[in-house]
């Protein structure tokens, strides 16, 4: 699972954190939201979502809680911790720098 999804793993984490930062949210809702925001451009593999959520919780960036939804079902809701917010900021900065660098390279390569 290493090489190929390294970059993907990092970006997925970033996206999850970003969505969860807006408020307590369960896994399904995150998947929905990501699809929504990116105007379906990002099709997150649902299968990678949950392991990612658990990994983020392990690292201490997310906190989870079993709650009932408004429809009455029991779902696991995730919130971002303070450490998670810091990580989110750091990752966002990294991403922006990376995007800039790539753009620069592409421009000058012409």
């Amino acid at each position, binding site marked *: 699972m290493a090489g190929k999804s390294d970059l993907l793993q990092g970006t997925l984490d970033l996206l999850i954190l970003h969505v969860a930062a807006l408020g307590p949210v369960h896994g*399904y809702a995150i998947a929905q939201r990501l699809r929504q925001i990116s105007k379906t451009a990002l099709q997150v593999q*649902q*299968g990678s979502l*949950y*392991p990612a959520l658990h*990994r983020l919780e392990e690292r201490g960036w997310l906190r989870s809680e079993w709650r009932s939804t408004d429809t009455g079902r029991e779902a*696991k809701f995730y919130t971002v911790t303070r450490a998670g917010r810091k990580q989110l900021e750091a990752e966002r900065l990294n991403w922006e720098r990376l995007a800039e660098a790539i753009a620069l390279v592409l421009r000058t390569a012409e």
Partner: protein
Amino acid sequence: MRWLRNALRRSRLERDIGRELQFHLDQHVEDLVARGVPEAEARRRARIELGGVPRIREEMRAARALQWLDTLSRDGRDARRVLSKTPGFSVTIVAMLAIAIGVAAAIFALVDAVLIRPLPFAESDRLVAIHHDASGVDLPWHGVSTGTYLHYRAGNRVFEDLGLYFERIDTLTDLAEPEQVHAAFVSPSVFSTLRAQPFLGRFPTNADTEVAPSGLFLRAAVVISHDLWTRRFGGSPDIIGRPIRFGNVPGLHIVGVAAPGFHFPRPDTQVWIAFPPEMRENRLRASLRGLSNNAVARLKPGVPVDEARADLNRLVRSIPDAFPDVTAAQFDQMGLRADATPLKDDVVGDVRVPLLMLLTTAALLLMITWANAANLSLVRAERLRREVAVARALGAGTRHLIHRFLAESSVLAAIAASLASIVASTAVDLRFGFAPTEIPRLGEVAFDGRVWGIIGGLAAASALLLALTAFFSVNRPHVFVALTGSLTRIISSRRDRAWRRALVTAQVALTLPLLIGAALMAKSIWKLSHVDLGFDPSGVFTFTLPVPPARDQSGDFYRGVARIHASVLQHVRALPGVQSAEAVTLFPLTPGSGYDNLRIAPSGRPDAWTYTSLSYATPGYFAAMKIPMLRGRTFETADLNDRAPGVIVSVRLARTLFDTVDAVGRRVQWPKGSDLRDDGTPFAPYVIVGVVGDVATDTLQEGPTPILYFPHVYPPPIPAVTFVVSNYIPDRQVYTVRTTLPLATLAPAVRRIVREVDATLAVTRFGTVQQRVDDSMARTRLTMLLLIVAAVTALFIGMVGVHAVLAYTSAQRIPEFGIRLALGADPRTIVSMVLRQGLAVVAIGIVVGLAGASGLTRFLRGVLYDVAPLDPAVFAAMAALVAAVALAACYVPARRAGRVDPVQALKAE
């Protein structure tokens, strides 16, 4: 049990994962259905979109491999969670640590207060005590005399101030209930030397004392302790000026109350009576054979003790010139030297060894506990190794791991610390069961910041130890072994086994010195309790009857005392059930009674005098106490003649004076200088009529002193050698009553008799003689008990460790045993193999322990009685005990190893 817990944990995780994924599917289906997709189709699509559930579950599980670590932090270090995970381990560790840390902290508090902290006087490091030593003669006392004190006071260049004092125990009469107190006769400069401040009133000055030409007190000022003031005088402010009676000393009145923390020279000194040394008639004499007072001095700022010593010895050299009673020849022969030692050493002197012994015991106990805790921690950490290996493969950092281990062990250590503080504070509150007389400065022991610091420090060290041992055990490159999964058991590396064996060896090696120390003390106690007392304590009650002096010192007082005692004796003898009643002034095993010493010489050789204790006894006393009459007879009526009473001597005195037991018929006399009566007529020599066996005067350990017994004759034929009217008047007598009556009947009857004879009198210290004997051994016994408790605890902990380690390692080797057995090995060889393994470790521990013990026990020399520190019998016995207990501990695992079913063992692979 372990598998059950893991199984529960895993099933919870599985359920969790399942629910979450199920919710996702259901939610997706709902949405699709809401958009018009038929249910069956919706379910299919949802499932496809999610992907392979088993794989997802596995990935989620992998992400959760660190769950056991996470539960901790997520639940906010809830202590209950930690304990409930492995309750056996947790409770054991907490209990062991609580006891070891509590005991260590308590003993530290004691040692801190007594040995480490400075005395509670201003700038107490400048206070010294002055002693003497003489290489040429055997000095019975090492203090100062009035003459030498004044000589040093006048001529020194190094002291800011000096004070002179000596101690007495006597009764404070004319209180509602007479009370025996420790008192100190002090020069007023003692208070200024100590820089003490009175609590109420003032300290005495020279002007407060009036002394008659004969040396008797007419008027003197007294300071009482704060404790005495609140306890017996109700803390009332009109205590100042109140007259008080201490023993025979007349004319005393209270001028001040000392501050609550003021204890000098002993913790239980209650009364200070001021006398100006300049007024003592013997200021003109050096009295070098009577250096029986104490002197305290304050060094000038910046003056080291060595300089003070040198200055004092300079003054010593001028003694023959300054005093008429010392010739140069005598002086040179004596080789007199003066010494100044820090006052603290004087105060704490003889408890230093027992206290340091206690401290060592606590340290040993702590180390044994730590060794055992480390062992348990190692064993426990091994069980987690697989999960940790997985976690590390997935990237869990080292810091992360240590952090989690530390969190867990900190919880345990914190609980242990709070329990330990309860243990320690209880011990401090109970003053360890010591009486103030046994341990100086006991009142200063407190559960303060330093003790908390010790507890905190030890707890932190314990937490660190547990966490690090767990981490190092787990931090091994065995990942490949763990993850292949085909070995369900993790085999310990050889290094681990070596560590565990080393820990067990250490525990055994540390336990053995404790056991040996305890056994040596026990042997001492046993010897002490079988010492020949010289009398028979069984069936005899005693009580003390002090008779306070009348205001005037005429001969009538003496007769009055005689009449009172004779009357009481007569009535007590007449009580039904009383077989005999006798009276004596110097009762055996009375601590502090060695204070009074007279000099007595063989008749015709007044220079060959020796010191002796003095006692008055009724004729039947020796028979009543079953003190053997070795030669001659007891007193008879003819001896009760105040001009020339017959006397009885103890064996030791006879031997010292005459070099033989057969002293009957010989005579003794007072030496020159004290052989004249008040009216100037000389005392006639006394005839020895009997020689009795020795009895211990002060304590059992010190043994017997020479005693000179007089019959009750009045006036007492003793020269007024001290300015305090005689401690040699038989006014305070100890009665011995042999009776079949129980104490509850005897005591009220005696009290009634005394009240009828004289209503102002009261009886004190009613009890059995056996009690006095027991009290004599009390302190040694207590130290021994503490040692025994520590040793037994250590033995138990150590053996639990041996058992656990052996059980675990042999359990690990079950596959190996299975193979051996399947190949035809005899089960007994398996058993012996396991036993040998265990006992080898213990044997090394025993050898190291014996070596350590032989180095340590020499420090017990001061407390042991008639037992050698390297007693081979004790060493051998304790080594055998440890070996036997170890054998028992190894037995069960060894047998289990032999019973292994080879088929099962191989199947478990």
